[in-house]
């Protein structure tokens, strides 16, 4: 009797713990991102797998070499998640060495340099992508078409380091590019099932909505953020569309095209770089939606999701301060 009780464990209450932990949250999101990757492989062939793998390798390798070891940084799945997300924002024919470099920069400048998980201000995956967009503007806007079979591999993927690849086959344009520069609006069904050109992870709207449902069900993300982004974009673009449906795209097109769903589900919801309190989340989502509509409709670029999220990341500390909860019994009207 006294034997098993001779060594009792002492630690402060509580002695119950919610089963949701940081690795499980990250893993759920990673699982969803890998689901997107599998569908991207069916759309864009082997290229998709290689681009995602190269970016993930760059990110994980950088965290392994330079990241903090004391807080189990490699055990929490956030590193691979960042890498996979960078890969999914790139075009299918993107040179692999560039994708790898994007992973290195995203992880290095976006996360490790800030002190690791939980310390960074900007979404590391988007830092990586922003770097690639600045460094390789042509490669990141060269789109190869989907539906070339599972083994499809673009010769530009295999460009040697420091070299730009050339695309042998035909290239295509994204729905947003077509809308902006050629004034052609892609049909809703094509957007919905991903029958368009675009970055690896962004084309299939139906898949992304299903995964949003999965992540909300797993409580792996704050649903307020994607809901308010999508709602804001739909509402604001509806206003312009009603004014002139020939000049401005419909709300459906705005929501289902480009990286909006992908960014709203996978990028804006990064807990580290989004607000903590519910009101902060709504404001954050509204800000992103507003910036996306402004950039897409009135800016020089066809797409604005990445910049919209990065800009709103910058004011998250202010949102956290502005939307402190009012403590119980301190002046709330009851």
């Amino acid at each position, binding site marked *: *009797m006294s*034997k*098993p*009780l001779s060594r*009792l*464990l*002492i*630690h*402060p*209450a*509580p*002695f*119950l*713990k*919610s089963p*949701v*932990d*940081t*690795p*499980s*949250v990250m893993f759920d999101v990673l699982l969803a991102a890998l689901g997107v990757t599998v569908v991207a492989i069916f759309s864009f062939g082997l290229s998709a797998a290689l681009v995602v793998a190269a970016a993930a390798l760059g990110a994980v390798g950088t965290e392994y070499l330079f990241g903090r070891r004391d*807080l*189990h*940084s490699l055990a*929490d799945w*956030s590193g691979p998640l960042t890498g996979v997300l960078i890969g999914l924002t790139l075009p299918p024919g993107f040179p692999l060495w560039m994708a790898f470099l994007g992973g290195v920069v995203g992880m290095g400048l976006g996360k490790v340099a800030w002190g*690791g*998980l*939980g*310390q960074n201000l900007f979404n590391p995956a988007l830092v990586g992508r922003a770097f690639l967009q600045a460094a390789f503007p042509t490669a990141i806007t060269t789109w190869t078409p989907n539906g070339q079979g599972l083994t499809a591999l673009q010769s530009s993927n295999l460009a040697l380091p420091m070299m730009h690849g050339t695309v042998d086959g035909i290239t295509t344009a994204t729905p947003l590019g077509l809308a902006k520069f050629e004034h052609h609006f892609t049909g809703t069904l094509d957007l919905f099932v991903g029958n368009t050109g675009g970055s690896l992870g962004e084309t299939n709207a139906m898949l992304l909505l299903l995964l949003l449902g999965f992540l909300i069900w797993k409580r792996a993300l*704050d649903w307020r953020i994607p809901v308010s982004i999508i709602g804001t974009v739909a509402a604001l673009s509806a206003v312009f569309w009603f004014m002139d449906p020939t000049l401005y795209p419909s709300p459906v097109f705005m929501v289902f095209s480009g990286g909006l769903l992908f960014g709203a589900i996978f990028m804006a919801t990064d*807990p*580290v770089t989004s*607000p*903590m*309190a*519910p009101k902060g*989340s709504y404001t954050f989502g509204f800000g992103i939606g507003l910036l996306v509509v402004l950039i897409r409709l009135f800016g020089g670029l066809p797409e604005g999701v990445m910049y919209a999220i990065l800009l709103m990341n910058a004011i998250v500390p202010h949102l*956290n301060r502005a939307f*402190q*909860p*009012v*403590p*119980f*019994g*301190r002046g*709330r009207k*009851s």
Partner: protein
Amino acid sequence: MSGFAHGVHPPDNKHYTEKLPIRRYPFPRRVVLPLSQHIGAPSRALVAVGDRVQRGQLIANPGGFVSTALHASVTGTVVEIAPYRVSSGALVPSIVIETDPFDAQRLEERPPLDPSALNNKDFVQHIQMAGIVGLGGAAFPSHVKYAVPEGKRIEHLVINGAECEPFLTCDHRVMLESPEQVMGGIAIVAERLGVRSTHVGIEDNKPDAVEALRRAGGGKGNIQVDALHVKYPQGAEKMLIKAIHGREVPAGKLPLELGMVVNNVGTMAAIYDYFQTGKPLIERVLTVTGPGVAEPANLLVPLGTSVREILEYCGIKPEVTQVIMGGPMMGQPLAELDVPVQKGTSGLLVLTKAGMAKEYACIRCGRCLEACPELLNPQLLAKLARGGRWEETESRAFVFDCIECGSCSYACPSGIPIVQLIKTSKAELRKRQRAK
């Protein structure tokens, strides 16, 4: 049904003991009765080593107004008055009584005392001399709540039958098995205080308790029995008032501020017993439960019984890792088992899985903010406390509003010991306060 904002939903784990009737625990060989079993000044011993005492006999007087009397929980002989280790780890002067093995341990009963014949001052004194404290766990001397300050009035009595701590079922069983005592105690206190309304709040995972109290007279006149949402910490005083009356007790104030008093159901039964038979607080119901117990039980235990004896009585599995006094959310882990059951001991929880959660970096997910029933910012509190920025935990994050319910630590996916950091900060601030 009504509720309060935020909170968490831990598995309630009541299935171990909720169906088990209360059993009387055999009288132990000896009892250790600490002179400080309540919040406030310690009691003053009236007996000396060698004295023979009767079960229920007064053995210590209140040591001040916020203090209560103490009574012998067995008939026997005082063998020692010395410091003994209690659950908190502190050494507390205690009266040790060796039980007379040949005594029948019968309690002297007196005829019922009519509380309405007493004036308020006498009523308060009776409760104090009966040694009655809040049996919900905090062990605050009950009479203090009934000594209403000049100019204040108690309009509403709120009775706490929520029992929101997972695993614990002692209040549940008392409501089921002694509804007349509970309702009788409520009637005494309600009449004495002259309240306009009385509400008994019970989480609706105990519909049979709601039913039992209603059958015993609840729901008639101005006494209501309310079924409340199952949500932790529904039984926290301020959350209970919010759920029942929709009002928030101002930060840093007592329910008295809103003309309310909150009491536990077990306390009501103890008050009824006292006025009916003269029985002071010498025993209490506690739940022995958890995956590490061979035979979980709800036991009526004499105060001062050793925890080790009770666990041996119920049987302990070899894979035990932790013994908690109280519930899993706010209970106290025991470093050693040779400590006595006290007035505030609501349960013994025996766990077989070890340890604190592995800690990861804070990802600022906000789950703690959505868990905190006090609507504080636990993430900020933990960050400031970890940085040793004690003053800021008060000036920027209202650290003293925290009721230490543990909801934030429960919810935190990164396993950060948020409540512990908050408690540390409070202790540091109090230390500085005293130094001034």
